[in-house]
């Protein structure tokens, strides 16, 4: 997914001279082809995220569209004031491409685990927050980012994630996608949790339970209308996110229902990371298991909810 995102920046730079790339201290060889083709629009600025966000704001004030890339925690926690003041107060079209949403950097411990990034980014006025589910969707999404007039936070998965998105679904910013329909329940998901939900829906099907999946690639602006339409007729709704349960996808849905359809609140359950930092290392998958974000859990929570 990250490779696709970076390649898209190069493609965008080829057709739009406003596009610039800014990295912090990324791995050797990152976007080498773009660096050769457009050396003046390729920046590798060192471990200095506060400066980098401010610099990207300066470039955007003068008409450029900066794509900034580094590890998610460093783009959110480290320079939150710069993101708020330089990007969001000025409402500038800077794209923050955040490596390693959720448990991707499991072996590296809690300093590198972006578990609250969605919550703190969606709290900022003017910010757009997206989390695509696979490389194909990333490709479609990136191509639509150029003319989006606001700052945008793009959360990346690990890479090599199973491709489940389809061309015919489209990828319109701010519009949720019904990936699978079901009459008994709906999983509402974001990022690579969509794959887990689709697998879980298959398992439920074997048990005779028909469950749909709504993929929310844009967490802010949240497509309340689209998601509510998808969940209003089913008995049970389970949100799934690789993120703390506070402030993310599940919260966004509860907020929308609280305001627009309080009658739906009772059928919603949330699955995510509990309100604490990770205490284990291992792999993304082992960490997801530790957090209780597994297909077994999804199946059990959905069945329990359906059976009331």
């Amino acid at each position: 997914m990250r490779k696709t995102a970076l390649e898209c920046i190069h493609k965008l730079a080829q057709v739009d001279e406003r596009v610039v790339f800014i990295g912090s201290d990324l791995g050797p060889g990152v976007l080498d082809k773009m660096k050769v083709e457009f050396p003046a629009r390729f920046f590798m600025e060192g471990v200095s995220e506060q400066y980098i966000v401010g610099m990207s704001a300066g470039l955007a004030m003068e008409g450029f569209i900066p794509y900034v890339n580094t590890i998610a925690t460093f783009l959110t926690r480290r320079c939150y004031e710069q993101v708020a003041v330089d990007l969001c107060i000025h409402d500038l079209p800077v794209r923050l491409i955040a490596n390693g949403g959720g448990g991707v950097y499991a072996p590296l411990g809690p300093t590198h685990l972006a578990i609250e990034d969605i919550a703190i980014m969606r709290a900022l006025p003017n910010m757009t927050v997206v989390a695509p589910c696979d490389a194909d969707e990333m490709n479609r999404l990136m191509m639509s980012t150029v003319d989006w007039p606001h700052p945008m936070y793009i959360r990346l998965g690990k890479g090599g994630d199973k491709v489940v998105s389809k061309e015919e679904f489209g990828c319109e910013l701010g519009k949720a996608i019904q990936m699978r329909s079901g009459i008994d329940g709906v999983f509402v998901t974001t990022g690579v949790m969509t794959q887990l939900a689709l697998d879980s829906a298959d398992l439920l099907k074997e048990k005779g339970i028909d469950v749909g999946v709504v993929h929310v690639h844009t967490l802010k602006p949240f497509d309340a209308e689209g998601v509510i339409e998808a969940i209003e007729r089913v008995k049970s709704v389970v949100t799934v996110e690789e993120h703390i349960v506070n402030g993310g996808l599940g919260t966004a849905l509860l907020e929308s229902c609280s305001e627009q359809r309080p009658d739906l609140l009772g059928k919603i359950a949330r699955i995510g990371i509990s309100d604490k930092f990770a205490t284990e290392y291992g792999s993304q998958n082992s960490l997801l298991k530790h957090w209780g974000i597994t297909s077994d859990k999804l199946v059990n929570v959905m069945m329990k909810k359906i059976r009331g």
Partner: protein
Amino acid sequence: MSLDDRSKLLRRYVVDAMRGGGRGHLGSSMSMIEVLRVLYDSVLKFDALDPELADRDRFILSKGHGCLALYAILADKGFFPVSELESFCLPTSRLGGHPERGKVPGVEASTGALGHGVPIGVGISLAMRLQKRKSRVFVLTGDGEINEGSNWEAAMAAAKHKLSNLTVLVDYNKLQSYGRTADVLDLEPLSDKFKSFGFITHEVDGHDISALEKIFKKLPFSKEAPSAIICHTVKGKGFPFAEGNPEWHHKSGLTEDDFRKMYECLQ
């Protein structure tokens, strides 16, 4: 050094604004009046009737709390009416306690939180280079402000990119909110710090009009490096009761007697 009529006029505009809002960072604004005066009178390229002029020089007031001085010179130059100064900090005013881009004509960046101006200035300087514009970028920081590490991250980058179109000005009045910069977090040797970060650096009396004009005429100090000018100033300059007095860093609840004393200093 006594103040001439123009310096007194600009200070009067600041006091008028404070009277309207009943508050303001007097000390922080007074230390930089002459620096702004010389910049806008003799250095910067701008058009008050066309604040978005593409080829203008960009000035960023990084120490946003000194906005009263910026508002005074912008009003004086015709970016907005002088009479508007009296709306300072009122609910629907354009002129808030920190300057905002998009609200106040001539304000390039919304500042107030400290340590943002130099990084943004580096980005704009790079943009000017990419667009092959001759526009120059000036960023004025406070002294307490450069406690923030973001300034030094950006300083390293400015040198790396050899941004000769960027000038960082430091309003070095030696006082921050709590007290003396030497006691809170000593900046010395400040000139050597900028030099070691790759800037060509000069120091100047920040209230001496001819010295300021002379030093600005020498810009850029190098075609291969960013420039820094450390302006030695006096906090509260022009008001003996406020000069060097941290109590006047910011004042609210000002009385008619306070304003009478301020205006008396400007006779």
